[in-house]
């Protein structure tokens, strides 16, 4: 379960921000998780209260925004959402596509006081 170590790295990044900006309280943290990021929502949510214990993040809410896979087609130039498990253009079925969304694993924002 690499989500636990990922939650730990996220908390250490956030702690740096909290100290630097002298944040009093954290209400929530919003994370963006792409379908192709290799990270699972449930274990990450499970890990969050454990790794935030004893920090200023303790008791804050974790909001996970899941991002679907979106590809740009080099043949018809359209952006379409992937219909997993097919990695192909949703418009012309070409397989000549590149990811424009779905590999993200980002801390999007934090609600603070």
């Amino acid at each position: 379960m690499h989500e636990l170590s990922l939650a730990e790295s996220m908390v250490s990044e956030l702690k740096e921000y909290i100290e630097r900006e002298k944040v009093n309280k954290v209400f929530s943290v919003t994370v963006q998780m792409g379908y192709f990021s290799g990270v699972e929502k449930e274990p990450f949510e499970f890990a969050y209260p454990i790794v935030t214990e004893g920090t200023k993040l303790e008791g804050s809410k974790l909001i996970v925004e899941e991002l679907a896979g979106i590809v740009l087609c080099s043949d018809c130039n359209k952006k379409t959402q992937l219909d997993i498990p097919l990695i192909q253009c949703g418009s012309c079925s070409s397989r000549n596509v590149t990811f424009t969304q779905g590999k993200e694993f980002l801390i999007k924002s934090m609600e603070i006081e």
Partner: protein
Amino acid sequence: MCLDCGCQEGNEKKFFHTHDHNGHTHPHTDGHDHSHEHTHDNANSRMVKLEQNILAKNDEFAEKNRKFLKEKGIITVNLISSPGSGKTTLLEKTLERFKGKVNCSVIVGDQSTDNDAKRLEDKCDNVHQIETHSSCHINAEQVSDVLSKVINDDTQILFIENVGNLICPAAFELGEDFKIALLSTTEGEDKPIKYPVLFSDARIAILTKTDLIPYLDWDLKKCRQYMRQINPGMFIFELSAKTGEGMDAWINYLETLIV
């Protein structure tokens, strides 16, 4: 009611007003869901945008490794598969073929023991085992820590044998030139679509244990189709490290990569 936009608690759309939303303006009665950049629960709170990559620290180490290895002209491959699909056996046979011809180094990751490193030490002078303990993957910092121990001025190829796991190692860049996904014939043809993150990211797939195909209800054609479905440009090798069948193509390919 929210003081900033006037909408109701819980994002209800009763109160008609317009506000900026992802670059366009629309009334709250519009009907489509949207999230707010501000909260309704905590009166004095504010939202700060961070847009920070959670794997940034790992990626920094990976970039440092990549630069170091590139400068030395070393080809680095990251071998990923489920446990028991034949990574170590493939490496044993590959190192045997390269002995005296191509200078190889190996970093091998397992949760526990140095059994794999011991298996490879006879075939190669530069083998280092990383024991990951509770972790299910090797990270870039661990590779960075041992690089100077396994790399020398003559090294041409660095093989990183990751922890046996199809999910987690795919999320961690190590500084490799590319990932190789291994899949053995005893695992089922549909692994590529069951584990699309790895198989869509790996440049190469190696189907191992092809000598067992006659004894299994395993459809090679179907497996190739699944691979192409998830990664159309994927380079596929089919081999048996045990019998040597298909090994020439793999060895020749690696030789073409060496500068």
